[in-house]
């Protein structure tokens, strides 16, 4: 028994095996790194980078965005219908015919089926005060600035819906134009009156 051996065994009885170190086989290192790499590729392609809105079969936020159903006008129109029914329809009616004593009709209204939509856009953005004549009848109930809190695109969609429903055939409204009109108005504009609206370009 050599002294060397005794040291290795921690002074135990002779002949016991000693723990030794050896290098990990190269193939294990290569296999581990390959698996890590493949895992990284899979994660990159399928996880959406922890985005809580990305679920299979979608693979990334960009793909999900690209797959949103939007058929241009059709999607805006559908959105406008939803906004109209939850915000405007309570007073103006889901059929756009208005409610006696409350709100004038929008179907066929001379304020709605104008060439441009500048005048019309001011009504939801500013609200309305005083009497307004619609289709030969006077309406006196004030309107709050119902559209002031809506995002530009939602307001544009609802105006598009109003101008294109119930037999109305006026053109589309874009969010960019609403943004401009809103910027010109500034914050908390005073409610418009019928005469002020008439003075504006259509």
């Amino acid at each position, binding site marked *: 028994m050599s002294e060397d051996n005794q040291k290795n065994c921690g002074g135990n009885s002779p002949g016991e095996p000693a723990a030794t170190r050896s290098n990990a086989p190269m193939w294990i290192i290569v296999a581990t790194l390959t698996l890590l790499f493949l895992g990284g590729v899979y994660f990159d392609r399928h996880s959406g980078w*922890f985005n*809580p*809105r*990305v*679920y*299979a*079969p979608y693979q990334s936020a960009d793909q*999900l965005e*690209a*797959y*949103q*159903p939007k*058929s241009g006008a*059709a*999607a805006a129109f*559908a*959105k406008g*219908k*939803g*906004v109209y029914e*939850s*915000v405007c329809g309570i007073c103006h009616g889901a059929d756009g015919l208005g409610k006696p004593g409350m709100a004038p009709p929008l179907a066929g209204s001379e304020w709605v089926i104008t060439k441009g939509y500048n005048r019309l856009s001011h009504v939801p953005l500013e609200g309305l005060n005083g009497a307004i004549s619609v289709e030969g009848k006077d309406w006196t109930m004030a309107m709050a600035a119902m559209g002031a809190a809506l995002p530009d695109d*939602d307001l544009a969609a609802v105006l598009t819906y109003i101008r294109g429903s119930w037999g109305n055939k006026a053109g589309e409204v874009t969010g960019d134009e609403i943004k401009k009109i809103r910027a010109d108005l500034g914050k908390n504009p005073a409610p418009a009156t019928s005469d002020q609206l008439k003075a504006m370009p259509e």
Partner: protein
Amino acid sequence: MKTGIGVFIAAFAALGASWAGFVLAPALQLGGTKVTTVLNSTDAYPVQRPGEAALGLQVYRANGCAACHTQQVQQDGTSFEVVLTGAGKDPVSVSNLAAGLKLTGLTKEAADAAAKSLADAGGKTETHLSGTGADISRGWGSRHSVAVDFLYDAPVQPGSLRAGPDLTNIGARAADANWQLVHLYAPRAIVKDSTMPSFAYLFEVRPATGSAEALKLPAGFAAPAGSEVVPTPAAKQLAAYLLSLHADAPLYEAPYSQLAKP
């Protein structure tokens, strides 16, 4: 023990990594889930279940319904459809072109190409997206389930085994409280070969009083002559909960669109 500290660090790292993966990452990812809106609309989603249905969730839980029923629809892929909505100035050539194109079951790229070629010819198109997969073709839903579907459920009952059908949209498939109650009392009165156990103990068989709540049972399952079967409050709550199961609204994270109904 010379390697004690090393073993401790290795064990701590292994447990810490799995905790980070199974607890921390999902909490960061979905912990902030809040009410969202239905796609292309301002309707809030989801809405709170009515009180009776919220109590019914606990009845659902107590009776172990989730052991045999899932509440999660899976989706394998997407399919696009291009619909011609306007023929433009030259309707004949546009409709001839449309007849020659494949317009359903498309990939996004193919749908965009078809829509573009029709638009170039002067036609107007709409592109519609629907989900595909075994669950969707069974009629269990139109889209995959997402975290927000379960926002108001405590605890959530997603289930993991399908001895019975998925119930994500049972409130839409069988929107009739009497159907739900009869099915709970006597499953085989409605589905002949059903393997679902009868939940008769949620009902009371009592001398007939002509109650409006008495179940209308088919022959062979009816209560003995002179008696009637009425649901207990628990059965009514469970039925209300089942009727409230309807997680099918299109969402940003689970989009689909269908042709507008005329």
